[in-house]
């Protein structure tokens, strides 16, 4: 392969900096080495730990089956990196090609990959958030603390938000035989991600397992006792519940504050990039040396009308990191687009929930196999007469078929006979997604505008968007 001189030099002795030492950052680093990058590789991470896997935290770790530090990610190959862990990136100077760190030092790059991910959206009232017993769950340390508290046997746990993480935490609490109340602003659990038809099934799972599920309410306040410990929560319907532990599961906010003023198109919805993972600057022009991958990225997807998708998905982080890394060190004509079909899973109340595609773009749903009532089914989502997504409850082996339906823009409702079609699978019904102007708790896919120059890609000053 003939490389021009500068690219060859970059591959041989260039400096690549990866900001974000989690799944996406690690897989990108491995890919860079795999593809022959022999220069200096610096991994910057705000947490003091080498890359670890997060999904187990709300499942086996919280259950007490596996210690929180048993989640370090295996390496697929040696990456020979310089690690700067425990030092968050605090600023980016695009013209000097330099990343500033919290410890006052800085690192220069020839190519930069931003994979800073997301963090839990905190409880908006700082005073209340500071009460002993109020938790979020995103990091290994969060999980260690929460697990310790659950082990102590609190009188009741309040979970605020019944998205995937909130539902998983509620499930763990019930398995630990702890009384638990779940407060959800939407009409059902998971309604933001999967709609209320499926959300009703999720609600049945909560009820069946003894969760005190309260939908259509907001938590309006957390009340402490005299010594700063959580005692009670107040709801928008006037009710209250006494709880020693509250877990705030209101979704995530993207770690982009450090990029404020950098000139990149970074904001509360993430960092906009093209399908090749190159970051857009605030003018809507792609940068050639700054790339984005993982939860923090927003990129246009050809399968979904070139809409910009932000995907907080494990598989997306891996796939996008691999594409970004490849594109960072190849010639322009060898660049690849990130065309990953969104895939997601959650395990709760002993049920494996998986989805493919973008359910919350859908207007209709049909239970194509199995039965909602039996909690084992496959449902397809439709948008303007096309299959746009599918979800399975304990029927993961069928999901690939529907992935192909999505990729082929197959007609909706599916016009063919299948095994295990029940009467409820004879006609589609409205999928029951909430009005997008009414935020629910933590949808895993957010769909935003059509182009990088729409109003959402605007210069956002520092201090933006904690409670977007």
């Amino acid at each position, binding site marked *: 392969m003939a490389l021009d001189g500068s690219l060859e030099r970059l591959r041989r002795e260039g400096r690549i900096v990866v900001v974000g030492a989690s799944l996406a950052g690690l897989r990108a680093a491995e890919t860079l080495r795999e593809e022959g990058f022999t220069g200096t590789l610096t991994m910057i991470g705000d947490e003091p730990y080498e890359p670890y896997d997060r999904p187990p935290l709300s499942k086996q770790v919280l259950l007490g089956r596996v210690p929180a530090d048993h989640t370090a990610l295996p390496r697929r190959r040696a990456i020979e990196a310089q690690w700067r862990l425990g030092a968050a990136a605090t600023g980016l100077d695009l013209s000097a090609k330099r990343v500033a760190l919290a410890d006052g030092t800085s690192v220069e790059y020839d190519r930069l990959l931003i994979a800073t991910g997301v963090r839990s959206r905190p409880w908006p009232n700082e005073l209340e958030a500071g009460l002993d017993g109020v938790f979020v769950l995103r990091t290994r340390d969060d999980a260690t603390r929460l697990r310790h508290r659950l082990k102590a046997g609190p009188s009741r746990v309040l979970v605020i938000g019944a998205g995937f993480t909130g539902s998983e935490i509620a499930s763990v609490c019930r398995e630990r035989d702890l009384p638990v109340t779940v407060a959800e602003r939407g009409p059902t659990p998971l309604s933001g991600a999967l709609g209320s038809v499926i959300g009703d099934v999720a609600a049945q799972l909560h009820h069946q397992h003894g969760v005190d599920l309260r939908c259509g309410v907001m938590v309006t306040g957390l009340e402490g006792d005299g010594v700063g410990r959580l005692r009670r929560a107040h709801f928008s319907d006037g009710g209250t519940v006494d709880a020693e532990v509250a877990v705030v599961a209101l979704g995530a906010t993207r770690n982009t504050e450090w990029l404020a003023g950098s000139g990149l198109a970074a904001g509360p919805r993430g960092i906009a990039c093209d399908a090749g993972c190159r970051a857009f600057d605030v003018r809507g022009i792609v940068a050639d040396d700054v790339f984005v991958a993982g939860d923090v990225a927003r990129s246009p997807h050809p399968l979904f009308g070139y809409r910009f998708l932000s995907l907080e998905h494990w598989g997306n982080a891996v796939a996008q990191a691999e594409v970004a890394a490849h594109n960072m060190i190849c010639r322009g004509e060898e660049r690849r687009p990130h065309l990953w079909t969104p895939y997601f899973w959650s395990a709760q109340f002993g049920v494996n929930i998986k989805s493919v595609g973008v359910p919350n773009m859908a207007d209709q749903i049909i239970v*194509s*196999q*199995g*039965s909602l009532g*039996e909690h*084992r089914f*496959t449902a397809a989502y439709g948008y303007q007469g096309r299959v746009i997504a599918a979800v399975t409850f304990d029927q993961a*082996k*069928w999901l*690939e*078929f529907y992935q*192909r339906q999505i990729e082929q823009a197959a007609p909706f409702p599916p016009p*063919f*006979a*299948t*095994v*295990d079609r029940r009467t409820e699978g004879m006609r589609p019904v409205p999928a029951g997604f909430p009005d997008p102007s009414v935020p629910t708790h933590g949808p895993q896919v957010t769909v935003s505008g059509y182009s990088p120059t729409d109003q959402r890609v605007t210069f956002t000053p520092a201090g933006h968007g904690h409670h977007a």
Partner: protein
Amino acid sequence: MTSVALLGQILDYANRADPYPLYAELRRTPVVRDESGPYLVSTYWEIHSLLHDPRVSSDIRNLAPEAKTAPRTEDPDLPPSFIRLDPPDHDRLRRLIMRTYGPPHAPRRVYGLRGEISGIVSGLIDRFQGRDRIDLVDDFSYPFPVTVICRLLGVPQEDEQRFHGWADTVATAIEPAVGTPEEQQAHWQAIREAHHQLAEYLSGLIAQRRRAPREDMISALATDRGADESPMSLPEMLSNLTLLLIAGHETTVNLITNGMLTLLRHPDTLKQLRADPDLVIPLVEELLRFEPPVQLLPERTTLDDIEIAGTTIPQGASLWLVPASGNRDPRRFPEPDRFLPDRPDNQHFGFGSGIHNCIGSPLARLEAQAALAELVRRLDNPRLVEDPPPYRHNAVLRGPRHLPIAFDGLSR
């Protein structure tokens, strides 16, 4: 529409020792109608797609009348076993079996057999002492998995012999019937009688274990009350236990025999395995790709027209998938005709794929790994006496009928 005349050749005993050139010919048209009727699917991605396609049925009652050909191979007096059903009936029965056999309810049932498996392997090999030649099939590959399945299910050792007889006869139903009409009649009559005797025996065992349950799988099945659905009826138990029994008899024997045959044809790999016994772990996966015990999946059908690879398979058609051909598809596996014990990304069809994936696969893996590693360790200078060896008639469950092996001695 084009059609081929390859199924007859594949089923022809003359081609049993090496069907792979026929499969390569078949793959020239990934989905094609054989002139004898069935649609044949021979390429990896097309097989994969159909194994995960909810429009494909395993229930032959969905075949169009004109597509119905072969006689039923199961006991006509019992309900179909789970592999011949679609969801939700398939799922219910498989779940009920899993409750007694695998995770999450019985996660250590198979794992707990490891000690017994290695004991049986050692015992059988010990009996080679003082000989310089064995028939691997009769002396090892056949008795080994049969003993294991009896232990798993809980058939008392003193009944194992009787049990083998019935199972053997019943298993011949998979073979195409041969001979005069009278002989065929007698053949089916014998099978039916064996079915009845087996069912009667199993009913007795089930009743006995209901009264005095033990740690075995029949006890677990006989006493299980199900979770959120009705437990298995006695006829369901009989048909599914018969299936497990036959599967335990007729497939692992081929995996192990094909394994030794392949190793003896690849002396360098055999040497490598001797030096690194753990290599048997990926090696068995490669074997499942290279010489899968189940070569064809016949008797599936379509609930709707399916368009695939430029062909429309009409509703109700007889659909034959050829996983042994998919396993050699060069579009999926680089150098598909080479046996590479540590082949990366080996997502073979040795145990099928999708909801009907082989329920016995973890057991078969442990058995094959234990058997091959130990045979290779203990047989001194093993070599083939004839190549190819004589094969069994069956084209679906393909493997040698005998595998004579000469050797110089036996290590401890």
